[in-house]
Structure formats: C-alpha cells, structure tokens
C-alpha cells in the first residue's frame, strides 16, 4: 500500500482523492487546502484527516506520494515543498506556466531523488489509446491529417484565476496542452507550429497547426467560452484509413428523470461515465505502479516539459503571426 495525500481540494483534488480511496494499492492518508472549508469538506467526504498547512501535513502524515491539484501558478512551488519532504509527486497538468519553471521542477525532483509524474490524462482515455494504436496500425509513413478540438464554458466563471493568463497560462497552456501532449505522443517530433489566439473577458479561443517531421499536419482548436456543453473530438486520416471520435461517440448511457414539481424544463439530464476504471483512475494507478516497478510511465515529466515548450511556441506564434520552429532540446537530468 502506498500512502498518498492530495494538495488542493477543488474539483481535480476531489477526483484524485476519490480515485486513491477506491484503489487497492493506495492508502489515502490526508488532504490539504489553504481554504479550510474546502479541506474540511473533502476530508470528511473521503474520511481522512485534513490540513490547511502543506508543511504540517507533510511532516505529520509523511505521505510517500503527493498529488498536486492546485492552480497552475502554484504547481512548481508546491512540487518543491513536496520534494523537500521526500515525497514523490503527481502534478496536475500543465506542469508549469513556463518551460523554464518546468525544467526547474524536473531538476529539483531529480536532485532530491523523488519521482515526478504529470497528469496528462488524455493519454489514458480508452478512445485516445485506441486512436494511438490505430494510427500505428494504419501506419502510413507519409503521415496524415489530424484534427482535434476541445471546447467548453469558460472555467473563469467558476475559478477566477483561470481568466488571468499569468496565473493559468490561458487556453493554449491549460486546455490545448491536452492535445499538444497527445499529438507529441502519437506523431513524434514536429518541425513548427502556426497559431492564432483571441483573448477577451469571456472568450479565449486558440487554433494551432503543428507540422510534424513524418509529414503529419495536426490542426488543434481549444475554446474557453464556448456557448454550449463541453465537447472534444478528433479525426486522423492518412492513405490507409480514417479514424474519428468524440464526445458524442462516447455516450452509452443517458439517465433522464421526469420532474413533477416546480420545473419548466421537465427533465434533468445527467451524463454518466460508464467505464469501470475511468481515465483518472487508470492514470493514477499507472503512476503508482511505475513507482513500484521503476518502469518509465507512458507519459514522463520530460514529455510534460516538451508539451509546455510546444504550448509556448504556439503562444509565440499567435503573438507574432509567424510560424515558430520547434527544436529538440536535451533531456533534463
């Protein structure tokens, strides 16, 4: 049993705590949030002790693994604190707001002998896993055309810090990075990126095209402030075939309840996840198993750093209206 703790008791922290709680190989020992109410609610929900001080929690319960699920601008400072206490770290994506900070986080953990994992959860979605296998099986060595999209309401409506690009990184660094990491995994090295971004109070929309060394052209869209429900989609086409999927292709259960009193809409719809092990569970389970076996995870901290670099390049391209070359950098050791 690996003793785990969660820092940050918001929506992602709740997911981590819940999955650890139901995982036979993990023992959730504590949760922590500087907002005492949030810490208390989650602590009570999952039935573990809760803290408002990270230092206090790390010293008192001495977790072996810490999940970091706090606003992005706090990732690296908390990675350092956890590493200082000798805890392995599972950090939510993006690893950091800048590649410089991300490099620093990797170096810091390495120097202190703790492992660092980053929660690029898209790699753990069964649909995307199959897509990656399908891309290999189709196997056109000329490459193909890839489209991916991720759109939903503005998270700044719920958590104000998302609205400030200096705190969240904006839609490219926070949302598009899912697909950026995914295409890195699926298509390998890229030559360049060309991007557009629009940022206002209500809308943060970005469109970025990555050109890969194998010929693939990947066109990504990320959208905060979409006037509809959250959805994502992908399509890969090459000389051997076409694979597409998306939100609408993953809904195998709808529960619609009639409402008898006080409602004009008449029914409430609850979309339900219908996998025995959801992608977050698979991700955390995989990271813990790598920790035990010493095997390399399917997405490494180095991958997370590269994703931040590519996101930075996309941001730069959007600023300058010019394509930005992507160079392969040395691994951080």
């Amino acid at each position, binding site marked *: 049993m690996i003793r785990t703790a969660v820092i940050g008791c918001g929506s992602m922290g709740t997911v981590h705590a819940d999955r650890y709680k139901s995982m036979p190989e993990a023992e959730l020992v504590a949760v922590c949030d500087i907002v005492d109410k949030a810490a208390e609610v989650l602590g009570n929900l999952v039935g573990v002790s809760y803290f408002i001080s990270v230092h206090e929690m790390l010293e008192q319960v001495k977790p072996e693994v810490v999940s970091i699920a706090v606003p992005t601008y706090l990732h690296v400072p908390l990675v350092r604190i956890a590493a200082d206490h000798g805890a392995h770290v599972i950090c939510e994506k993006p690893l950091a707001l800048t590649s410089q900070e991300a490099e620093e986080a990797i170096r810091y953990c390495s120097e202190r002998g703790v492992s660092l994992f980053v929660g690029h959860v898209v790699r753990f979605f069964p649909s995307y896993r199959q897509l990656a296998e399908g891309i290999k099986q189709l196997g056109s060595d000329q490459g193909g055309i890839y489209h991916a999209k991720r759109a939903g309401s503005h998270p700044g409506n719920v958590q104000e810090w998302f609205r400030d690009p200096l705190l969240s990184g904006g839609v490219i660094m926070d949302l598009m990075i899912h697909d950026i990491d995914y295409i890195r995994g699926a298509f390998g090295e890229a030559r360049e990126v060309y991007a557009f971004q629009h940022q206002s109070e209500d809308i943060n929309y970005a469109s970025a095209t990555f*050109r890969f060394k194998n010929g693939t052209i990947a066109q990504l869209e990320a959208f905060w402030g979409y006037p509809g429900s959250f959805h994502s989609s992908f399509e890969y086409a090459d000389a051997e075939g076409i694979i597409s999927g998306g939100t609408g292709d993953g809904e195998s259960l709808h529960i619609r309840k009639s409402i008898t009193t006080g409602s004009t809409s008449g029914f409430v719809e609850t979309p339900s996840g219908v996998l025995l092990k959801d992608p977050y569970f698979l991700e955390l389970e995989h990271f813990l198993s790598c920790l035990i076996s010493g095997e390399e995870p399917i997405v490494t901290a180095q991958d997370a750093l590269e994703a931040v670099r590519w996101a930075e390049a996309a941001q730069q391209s959007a600023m300058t209206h*010019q394509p930005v070359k992507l160079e392969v950098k040395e691994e951080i050791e």
Partner: protein
Amino acid sequence: MSRLNIGMISFAHAHAFDYLASLLHMSEVTVGGIADEVPERTEALAKHHSIPYYADYKELLADANIDAVIICSENVYHGELAIASARAGKHVLCEKPLGLSVEEMQRMILVCSEEGVQLMTAFPCRFLTPVVRAKEALDRGDIGEIIAFKGTNRGSFPGPKWFSDEALSGGGAVLDHTVHVMDLMNWFSGSSVEQVYAYADTLFDPERKRMIDDAGMVHVTFENGVFGVLDPSWSRNPGFPTWGDVTVEIIGTKGVISIDAFNQKNNVYGRVSGKGSRSFWGDDMNELMLKAFVQALIEGVEVPISGIDGLRSTEVALTAYQSVHAGQPVRLNK
C-alpha cells in the same frame, strides 16, 4: 428576355453532367448546344436529349441563339474559353477555380465587362441552405463580430485524370478545395485576405505515385483581423460513407455558428455494397445556383457571384502555393 438559351462547353469536369440534368428540368431554359472535345463523353447524351453536339466550341459560340455558356473544362482552359465566349457575346458561368493566375482572371473579368456580358463563378456552396441561413444569422448579428473560422472541404480523389496533371489543373487539392470554403469565408467576413500561410503535401496515395498535392492546411488572416483555417485535403477513402464534406465553424464574440452542410442525410447499409453510406436529402445546391444564374440574366440584373469573387478566392489558393514554396506567410498583392 423570358427564356434563356444556354450552351455547355466541355464536360471535362463531372459537374457538367449534374448541371445539364438540372438545366433540363428548368422550363425557362433551352440547352442550345453541347460542345465537348471528347465525343465519347457526351455525343450520345446530347443526341438523347436532342441537343446539337459540337466537337469544336467555336461552332457553338457561332450560334447567335445562344445567350449564355457554362464552362466545365480543365482548369487551364477556363481563361481562353471564357474570353472567347465573351467575345462572341455570351454570358459566362465558369466552373471554379476561375483561372490559374491573377492576370488571367483579371483579363477574363475585363473582357466580359468590355463585351457587356456577365461572368459568374460556379460556387454552389453559397446556395447551400445551411450556408444561406448562417449568413442571415451573421447579418442579424446573432453571434456578434467574427473572431475566427475553421473550415473543412475534405473530399475524395477526383476521378478524371487531368486533376492530377498540373499542366491541366494548375494545382491539386489546395487549389481545387480551397476555393469553395474560401469564398464562403470571404462572403461571411466582408473583408479581404491579407496574409496566407499554407502547407501542401501528397499524403493520401497508398501507391505513392500521385504527382500532385492531395493534402494541405491553409491559414488566412483577413484585413479586419479575422483568422481562418481550412483543410482542403482529398482525404476521404472509398471506405468512408460519403464523398466528403463542407463544414465551417464561425467563432464570434457573442456565439458560434456551426455549419456541416451535407449533414442532412439518411444512413444506408447495403448488403451488397459492404459498407455504410450516406444519402443526402437536403436542397440541391447546383440547381439553386443555376436558377440564380438564369434568373439574373432573364431579369437583366447582376449575377449573385461575380468574376471578382472567383478571383479573390482563387488568389488565396494560388498564394497558398507561394507560401508552401517560400515556407513562410505570404502577403497578398494589393
């Protein structure tokens, strides 16, 4: 004028067969002649419908009864045929892309103007009902100001061989399939493209013999700051349930409009065909386009899509190739 006598010049582009079928249904139209340099393609068809057939288009143009022509030749001949038709006093509906250079298209426009005939570019997508409704919504201000477009005009590799012969086509997918959705973006934005950055490649031939681009991604920036990206690839294979698509998503400051123009369909699963396919039941864009052309000429008003419209979107496709060769964004000549 209450009726229109239309001659058809060349059936190299298969759209000509669809156009002919539509024209034959129109009571105000007489198809006064078919000129096609390949008799096996059309002579019997012309005879079947009792339409005079000419191997040489000049004979068709010599018929003074013909008011207008529809040109569906290989792209490289559009200029020559349109100019000859205008000189013979015929109005012209020309298949896209209008021409293969800006100078050529300017000359086509100029000669038509000199001869007092109208030049229309065949952009049937403007007549897709979802597209028309989207334009109305934009004009009403339903989604505020436009921020960006994402479009696709994915298709299958065209049957006729000349499409992959650059000497006849002038370009591959990036030319053939950029122009339709580019015209829609021009129309929707009410602005002009300032900068183009594009990729073009040959990715979709499993035998790797194709000599022309069949894949690409075209990025445009309009003078008013609107961004657009468009996938013109011939990326649909025979296993796909339909030939291709026309989609445009318009991101606005106060909303989003999503067009998936051919998503008015039944799904058909035949035992013999061994695959699923889509059966389209929406309004017929070709027929609506031809009616608009005929109507404008009969009423003596301007055709709804001009030669300049054809030039503007073709210029973007031509600039896309310049950008591919330069490996950097290219600004359009003013």
